[in-house]
């Protein structure tokens, strides 16, 4: 099966093609095609996982663009433990989200379009995961970006949605530009783009250290954009304009982790550059705390989760930067499940209330008990409470930070505190107290409830895969060798305590759904609150300052273009015209005259060429 792992990606593409070719006329058919394709893909992924666990490794590539001199571009796919894990994560979360969407998107005008885009997205994401070279990956990387654009802008009739879609696309493109430069840079130095070749080149020291650092930092730019790291994180909160299942799948569990995956994939290269590692770790750590702080004040339930996502992605990036790649991937693995669950829960509430506003919710535990329980479990997991899944991976990351960089450790701990606080603020405001808004009195469709129930399982238990208790199967699998995880008891204790303190603070402030607490706090900490609500004025910065620079630069280029380049081009044109005016007398329009001149010239040339020969013979 591993030999044909590309099938996993091809299935959703097939679904997409079928929908685009005609199945779109029937929404139900579109949906079921998508679900079928992904379900099959999921089953195949599990099979691949088994084979990989048994020791199989696959890499196939074919020549795409031979450039001579032994250079050339290839496309292909590879399956190794990292890929296998990602395949399972992507297909399983996708499957649940698609099933969830059956109910959530029911009756939407763009139902088929939604499923078509979802299929295309799944294909792109799986392709990205299967890619065996930076180039192949980059192709799917951009496809993923495109799908994200399509899905964020799904309700394109809403101006905010289309603006958010554009923003996501453009901001990530900024990072992608760096990524592309990095690809070219690495190709320049290594002569190949296949991961294996790059790793060998780096290991053999064929890439100069400085070049490796620059190249990896440029590649990291791509990850910064796609995984919404500071300073390109601004698009992700806005991306919540898309349908909630999209947020759950793309902006929590899959696409945004592409950046993390990229860094994990190129980790063997990254390892060789301490500087790049440092930059990656600092950016990740800073993003973690930076985003968490904004989560505290957000009132839009999905934005809270979005900030949380950014913050957790920061965690993962930081882990990779600290050299704990498998811990980062482990966190990615766990996070995918509980964050998807959180988003689906949020979707369930939004479906019920028709609003994202936390202050309009309240007391929903009675109407949606399952959602309440699921949210609480996922939040506890996210906060890192023993023994839920988040605890294990977060603990590994914290332990790595504690042993290498105290400053980052402090930041991470603060993030743990903030995470616990804003998550439980969300829960208290949404579920406790008395209802504050109108609810639709319709029962939740089964297709929405079941994915929640299913996702609770990995949210609780997926962490066990990485515990020392069971011999850390996850880490061993990923590294391809037996790796023992040690529970760093002091760190675990401290982080649990900090998380509990965060929950306590949330209870003190917002327990029983005291929404008015927000206003009181806002008044009390006016400057900080303003700063946070305005997201550190990052968007203003981009709109005002950066945009002005860009526009100024554009103005300058325009002037240069007009006065220098155009003048030159026009000069050539006018010279040609004046030359032509003097020559046009020869152009009588008589075709035969031209032919005559042509042949007369040919004969003359032949005679001239033959003259020496004739002279010589006579």
């Amino acid at each position, binding site marked *: 099966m591993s030999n044909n792992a590309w099938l996993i990606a091809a299935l959703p593409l097939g679904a997409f093609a079928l929908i685009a070719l005609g199945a779109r006329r029937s929404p139900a058919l579109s949906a079921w095609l998508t679900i079928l394709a992904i379900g099959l893909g999921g089953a195949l992924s599990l099979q691949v996982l088994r084979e990989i666990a048994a020791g199989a490794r696959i890499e196939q590539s074919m020549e795409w663009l031979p450039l001579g001199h032994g250079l050339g571009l290839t496309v292909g796919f590879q399956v190794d433990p990292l890929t296998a894990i990602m395949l399972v994560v992507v297909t399983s979360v996708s499957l649940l989200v698609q099933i969830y969407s059956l109910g959530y998107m029911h009756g939407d005008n763009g139902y088929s379009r939604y499923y078509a885009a979802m299929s295309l997205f799944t294909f792109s994401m799986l392709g990205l995961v299967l890619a065996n070279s930076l180039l192949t990956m980059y192709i799917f990387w951009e496809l993923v970006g495109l799908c994200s654009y399509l899905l964020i802008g799904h309700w394109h009739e809403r101006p905010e949605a289309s603006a958010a879609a554009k923003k996501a696309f453009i901001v990530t493109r900024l990072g992608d530009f760096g990524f592309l430069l990095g690809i070219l840079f690495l190709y320049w130095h290594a002569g190949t783009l296949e991961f294996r070749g790059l790793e060998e080149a780096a290991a053999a020291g064929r890439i100069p250290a400085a070049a490796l650092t620059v190249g990896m930092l440029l590649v990291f730019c791509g990850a910064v954009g796609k995984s919404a790291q500071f300073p390109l994180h601004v698009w992700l909160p806005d991306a919540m304009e898309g349908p909630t299942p999209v947020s759950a799948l793309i902006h929590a569990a899959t696409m945004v982790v592409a950046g993390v995956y990229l860094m994990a994939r190129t980790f063997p290269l990254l390892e060789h550059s301490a500087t790049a590692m440092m930059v990656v770790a600092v950016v990740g750590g800073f993003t973690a705390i930076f985003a968490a702080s904004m989560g505290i004040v957000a009132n839009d339930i999905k934005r809270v989760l979005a900030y949380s996502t950014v913050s957790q992605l920061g965690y993962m990036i930081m882990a990779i930067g600290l050299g704990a790649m498998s811990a980062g991937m482990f966190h990615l693995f766990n996070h995918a499940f509980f964050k998807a669950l959180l988003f689906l829960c949020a979707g369930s509430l939004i479906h019920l209330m028709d609003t994202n506003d936390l202050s309009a919710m309240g007391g929903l535990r009675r109407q949606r008990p399952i959602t309440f329980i699921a949210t609480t479990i996922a939040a506890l997991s996210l906060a890192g409470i023993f023994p839920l899944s988040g605890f294990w991976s977060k603990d590994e990351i914290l332990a790595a930070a504690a042993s290498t960089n105290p400053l980052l450790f402090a930041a991470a701990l603060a993030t743990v505190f903030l995470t616990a606080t804003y998550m439980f603020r969300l829960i208290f405001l949404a579920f406790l107290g008395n209802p504050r808004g109108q609810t639709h009195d319709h029962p939740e469709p089964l297709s929405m409830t079941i994915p929640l129930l299913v996702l609770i399982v990995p949210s609780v238990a997926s962490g066990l895969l990485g515990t020392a208790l069971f011999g850390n199967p996850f880490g061993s699998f990923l590294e391809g060798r037996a790796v023992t995880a040690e529970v760093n008891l002091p760190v675990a204790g401290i982080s649990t305590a900090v998380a509990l303190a965060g929950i306590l603070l949330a209870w003190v402030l917002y327990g029983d759904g005291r929404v008015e607490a927000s206003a009181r706090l806002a008044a009390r900490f006016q400057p900080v609150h303003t700063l946070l609500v305005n997201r550190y004025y990052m968007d203003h910065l981009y709109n005002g300052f950066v945009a002005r620079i860009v526009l100024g630069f554009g103005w300058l280029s325009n002037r240069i273009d007009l006065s220098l380049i155009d003048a030159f081009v026009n000069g050539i044109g006018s010279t040609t015209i004046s030359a032509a005016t003097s020559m046009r007398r020869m152009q009588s329009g008589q075709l*035969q005259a031209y032919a*005559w001149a042509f*042949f*007369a010239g*040919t*004969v003359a040339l*032949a*005679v001239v060429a*033959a003259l020496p020969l004739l002279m010589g013979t006579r």
Partner: protein
Amino acid sequence: MPVDFLVAGGFYTFGLASIIGAIGLIVARNVFHSALFLVVTLASVAAVFVILGADFLAAVQVLVYVGAVMILILFGLMLTPVNLEVPHLASAGQAVSGVLVAGAVFIVTTATLVSVQWPKVVGIPSDAPTTEQIGESLFTTYALPFEIASVLLLVAMIGALVIAREG
């Protein structure tokens, strides 16, 4: 030897016929007659092809030139009936200079052909059927030109349609 003699006889007969056809094409005052002289040339050239061992090409020559191109030309003649007979030659100066240049081309070319030492024949010219060989080289060595030629035909067909309809 007698077979060789037959080949020579055929070559001179049909070569001469083709040249007579070509001259007739130019000299004829009537465009329709010109066209018929062209048929003589084309058919004779096909016969020359057979003598030179290119039987497939000869069949194609007949099929395409006589079957398609000539019919097309005659059709064109019938659709543009004005001035079918009257002015056939350009101004005297142009005619004379044109013939002079053509003659010069012939003399220069022939002089070259005669004086060049051509390489010895590689292998014996065979009269074996050529169809299969041509087909094979068309689809292997010359696959790209073949495809380009097919595209060219398509473009020409569409172009001819468009021009004829809009004109």
